[in-house]
């Protein structure tokens, strides 16, 4: 198996799907001649031409809507948002049009479109560029929301997203593009809606997704040395949530920590807690603990930026709390 960077895995998925289906095209800012702001579309313009790799003006609402219109009549657009922070400008098209077309038309229309781009905090970019916004989209019926953590999942889930008949919102990790991992060649498809046990364990479950997975791994390794066995469930899909996988891990370890980059209030993790307390309350040996971004805007100062986000020490503290080993 080839070892690829996250961005290369995405590039491979795009190229393979465009090769397979001429209805697939990519539109976004700097995706063509610049080869992508984060180089996800590297080389695709030369391969597929300017009608299929389209450099859009900086008009997020405009080209998001153009993609939706094209999807309404049978094309399969992939709309790259340079970052999800900018996609806030396009939210009306994603939420009021893409998510609702099938419903408002009573089942006459479908909207097979992918909106994708990097999410989460970058490197010292302050408030407007450092946001994990997935909870916003997970809120809306009519959308599917995915956030893969590994290069292999990134490739497999993007392929699934492009083939899906529904609008799919894909959060990539801005800080994940350069990480490496083994990626199966060719037809490697990861289903949407299925979580993945990334690490087997028996004492406590950590439920997470996207970049936070790596902090959880770091924490789990350290905890292992203290004799604590951690299971990590990577949700991968945030809408629909894989309830079965969530309940299975709760029933296995009876203790849960949820790690989420975004804010706590109305976050995805809050819904995971709701599933657990309503369907597996009796399986819990301790209240669920959430580790989230702090309820503040992101600062530029390095120490403040770090303090705002979850990290391995915070996760370790949370694990000890659900194990009643505080101060131990």
């Amino acid at each position: 198996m080839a070892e690829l960077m996250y961005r290369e895995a995405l590039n491979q998925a795009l190229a393979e799907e465009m090769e397979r289906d001429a209805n697939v095209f990519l539109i976004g800012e700097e995706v063509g001649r610049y080869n992508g702001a984060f180089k996800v579309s590297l080389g695709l313009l030369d391969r597929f031409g300017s009608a299929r790799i389209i450099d859009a003006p900086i008009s997020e609402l405009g080209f998001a809507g153009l993609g939706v219109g094209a999807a309404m009549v049978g094309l399969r657009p992939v709309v790259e948002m340079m970052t999800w922070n900018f996609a806030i400008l396009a939210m009306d098209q994603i939420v009021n049009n893409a998510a609702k077309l099938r419903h408002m038309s009573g089942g006459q229309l479908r909207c097979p479109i992918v909106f994708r781009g990097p999410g989460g905090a970058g490197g010292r970019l302050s408030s407007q560029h450092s946001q994990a916004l997935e909870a916003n989209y997970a809120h809306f019926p009519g959308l599917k929301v995915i956030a893969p953590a590994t290069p292999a999942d990134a490739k497999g889930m993007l392929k699934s997203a492009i083939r899906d008949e529904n609008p799919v919102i894909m959060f990539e990790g801005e800080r994940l593009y350069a990480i490496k991992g083994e990626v199966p060649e060719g037809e490697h498809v990861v289903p949407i809606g299925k979580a993945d046990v990334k690490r087997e364990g028996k004492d406590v479950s950590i439920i997470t997704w996207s970049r936070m997975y790596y902090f959880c791994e770091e924490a789990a390794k350290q905890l292992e040395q203290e004799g604590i066995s951690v299971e990590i469930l990577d949700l991968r899909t945030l809408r629909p949530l894989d309830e079965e996988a969530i309940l299975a891990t709760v029933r296995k370890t009876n203790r849960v920590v949820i790690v989420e980059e975004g804010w706590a209030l109305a976050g995805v993790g809050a819904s995971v807690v709701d599933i657990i307390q309503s369907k597996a309350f009796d399986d819990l040996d301790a209240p669920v603990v959430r580790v989230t971004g702090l309820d503040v805007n992101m600062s530029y100062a390095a120490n403040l930026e770090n303090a705002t986000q979850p990290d391995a020490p915070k996760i370790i503290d949370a694990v000890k709390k659900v194990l009643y080993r505080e101060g131990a």
Partner: protein
Amino acid sequence: MASQYSKELLLTMYRKMYLIRRFEERTDQQYKQGKIAGFCHLYIGQEAVAVGPNEAIRPDDYMLSAYRDHGQPLARGSDPGMVMAELFGRSTGYSKGKGGSMHIFDIEHHFYGGYGIVGAQIPLAAGMAFASRYRNEDRVTVCYFGDAAANQGSFHETFNMAAKWKLPVIYICENNRYGMGTAIGRVAAVPEIHKRAAAYNMRGEAVDGMDCLKMYEAVKDAAEYCRAGKGPVLLEANTYRFRGHSVVDPASYRKKEEVEEERKNDPIPKLREYTLKKKLATEAEFEAIDEEVKAQVDAAVKFADESPEPSLDELWRDTIVEPGEEDVRPRERVLGMKVKWPSYPSGQELKVTWDLEPREHAEREDKKAGLAR
């Protein structure tokens, strides 16, 4: 002088305008009886803007509109009973009662919907036109929006792209002079919307929206221009709504005299008089059409009234497409008619030959071939 228009065309346009008028009058009545709810925006006065263009394009051209969207589908040939049933929130409506007045969709007749957010449909139309170019089809897309939508960002963002990429889309601004209760001149720096096309190097024209034949001519011309690959067109149809913004709006922000003055421009008697003057039809023929349409609208109301509400399990349908699930064909489902449904080439059949940036593409090709520029 003989008319350049056939009797058939004139009577078709008359019939459709009269159908929309009667339909809307009955809609108003039904709303006041509590059978219709929600926001309900009537088209009375603007009939020529829907009917003229529809006769100037092909049945397979795409069309979409805003929330004042009963007129266009009726002009396209949608079933009045199913439109009325949608307004009633019944299972026999085009969207099974899930869309209501602001969201009429009839894909069989290539009417791609009414949209409730001001200006939100403008980029969708560009995307549909983009798809036509992408597949090398000579279809045009006709997109309606109101004067107020011209102040939305979606208007400017889309016009920039549509013009730059020469997309085959005809934008028809229905300038009825009021965005809800606000006169356009109070909020628009350039209230003559068609002039804004110049900002995008795009063709823009004002048309008398109270004259069906002028709308027909303008769109015929624009469609030819679009199909020839020359780019998008903005038509500003200067029209007037005889009623308020919606059924519940008494429209007290405008003077009675203004409305009375505009009513003299009613597009329906205008076309009738023209046809009579050209001796292409008799009063008796018009009266027969009127009677037929009245009966048709009565039947539509009866159909809607007698239709059941959607069943509760419909709540869980039509939000997400399940694997293998087919799209709903409303006339087939409700009336048992065999309908022609749009089909698109599969990825294997499709050859994309269009170049969005031909000059630069050529440069790249040259570079690849080792030719300096």
